[in-house]
């Protein structure tokens, strides 16, 4: 099935943009925290600073971007508009942002009030978001585009995984806040959050967006059909095994191995698709995809190290590879497509009207920037280089290299500032374009007939 997008269904710019702009802001905050904490920041996965950093990454950076982008994708790729979308964003964005900051504060200062408040804010944000999106999916189930049915399966799986990860996480944070014994489902919380929500959503997006925006071959049909079903089944099996006493650890490891193999197969297919794409020169987004998928392949040896090695840092390195390498790179790279595309689309909309005068259309085409000029390729590639250096440094820091632990925070700050600068400049260009359109229209109207 060929891939297509219906740009006319694009929601208002104010819908995805606040979520997307959270990315550089939370990256900057995480960089500042890692710099302030110094080498302790990545010393152990159980330290308060590491947990605060983890949630700044997963909720502030990845979560924000994925929630915002999903609203956009559901509308343009699946014909599933979210009901009351402006109102939803007005509530969910501040709740998510404040809740994430409170959760990080709770971990940093081991502060029960912050944990309980974070649970209230985040639970409200996710209940509102998931409830409304689920309602939209149900209401528009008959009108879904034919070519989009394959991505709706991973999207539904991702949303169900998010609901579970939030439920498990909220109960863990509540237990912390009320000083109760921690329930034994941390593994499930992590797995549903990263492999379920993060992995499935990314997988669905690649099925739909890579052929369109990277001009690749479409994915093999058995993969698009079965992989999004296999992953949730494996996650359910893993959680059931985690909750059951007495079953051999080997069974859980077997499930992990199949899950890993499934993701590695998808990662290898994506790399093959990118390598053989029709355009020989990679764009910045393509480079981010390479980092993301290579990080995914690196998870295989890291998992073997985790399950059969003796290093205490293995789980931390694996976590950094997934959060910063796989998901962080994909989100960062997608911003270079989504943001310029949204700005270009909304600038185009500002000149739309029935039966445009061809002379006026020529004037508009001169004043409206092309999508590629919103963020220059050199600027995007520079930030990619900073992101790559930061990712490698975070991996080395997690592995225990002392010098990398000192550099991890500052490198994230550099990458976040470059990203903020690139996005900020694109927004400025958009505002200038709107002004130029208004001036061109006024000057055209003043011309004698």
């Amino acid at each position, binding site marked *: 099935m060929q*891939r297509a997008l*219906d740009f006319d269904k694009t929601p208002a710019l104010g819908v995805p943009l606040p979520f997307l702009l959270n990315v550089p802001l939370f990256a900057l905050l995480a960089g500042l925290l890692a710099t302030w904490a110094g080498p302790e920041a990545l010393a152990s996965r159980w330290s308060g600073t590491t947990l605060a950093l983890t949630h700044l990454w997963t909720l502030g950076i990845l979560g924000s971007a994925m929630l915002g982008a999903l609203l956009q994708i559901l509308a343009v790729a699946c014909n599933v508009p979210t009901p009351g979308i402006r109102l939803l964003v007005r509530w969910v964005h501040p709740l998510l942002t404040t809740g994430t900051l409170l959760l990080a504060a709770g971990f940093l200062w081991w502060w029960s009030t912050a944990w309980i408040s974070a649970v209230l804010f985040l639970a409200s944000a996710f209940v509102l978001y998931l409830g409304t999106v689920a309602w939209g999916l149900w209401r528009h189930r008959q009108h879904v585009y034919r070519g989009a049915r394959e991505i709706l399966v991973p999207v539904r799986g991702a949303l169900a995984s998010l609901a579970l990860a939030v439920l498990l996480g909220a109960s863990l944070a509540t237990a912390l806040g009320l000083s109760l014994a921690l329930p034994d489902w941390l593994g499930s919380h992590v797995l549903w959050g990263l492999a379920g929500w993060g992995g499935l959503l990314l997988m669905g997006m690649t099925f739909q967006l890579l052929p369109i925006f990277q001009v690749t071959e479409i994915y093999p049909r058995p993969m698009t059909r079965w992989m999004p079903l296999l992953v949730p089944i494996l996650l359910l099996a893993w959680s059931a095994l985690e909750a059951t006493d007495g079953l051999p650890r080997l069974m859980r490891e077997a499930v992990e191995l199949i899950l890993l193999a499934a993701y590695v197969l998808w990662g290898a297919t994506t790399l093959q698709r990118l390598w053989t794409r029709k355009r020989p020169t990679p764009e910045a987004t393509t480079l981010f995809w390479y980092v993301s998928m290579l990080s995914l392949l690196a998870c295989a040896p890291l998992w073997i190290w985790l399950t059969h090695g003796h290093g205490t840092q293995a789980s931390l390195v694996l976590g950094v590879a997934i959060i910063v390498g796989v998901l962080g790179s994909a989100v960062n790279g997608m911003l270079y497509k989504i943001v310029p595309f949204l700005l270009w689309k909304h600038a185009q909309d500002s000149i739309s009207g029935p039966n445009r005068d061809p002379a006026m259309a*020529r004037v508009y085409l001169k004043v409206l920037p092309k999508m590629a000029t919103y963020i220059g390729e050199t600027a995007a590639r520079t930030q990619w280089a900073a992101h790559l250096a930061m990712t490698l440094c975070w991996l080395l820091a997690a592995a225990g290299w002392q010098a990398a632990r000192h550099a991890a925070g500052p490198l994230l700050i550099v990458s976040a500032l470059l990203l903020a600068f690139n996005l900020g400049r694109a927004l400025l260009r958009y505002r200038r374009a709107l002004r130029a359109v208004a001036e061109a229209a006024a000057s055209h109207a003043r011309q004698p007939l």
Partner: protein
Amino acid sequence: MTAPDLTLDVRGLSAPQPLEQCLEALTGLEPGQQLHMLIDREPWPLFNILERDGYEYCCTFEETHFQVSIWHA
């Protein structure tokens, strides 16, 4: 005399470059002249714009790509 038809090959370009190039080419399209665009995917967003702006079009699948022919209504 009608100006010769135009051909625009946007195969291998990522979205929204085909749309951008087509809109640019349409500004030079004269009455009676046709623009033949060769493209990898069926350009649904373009069809809406063409209908809105008073063009007619015909889209055919040519084994490896689509050809969209556009002219003034």
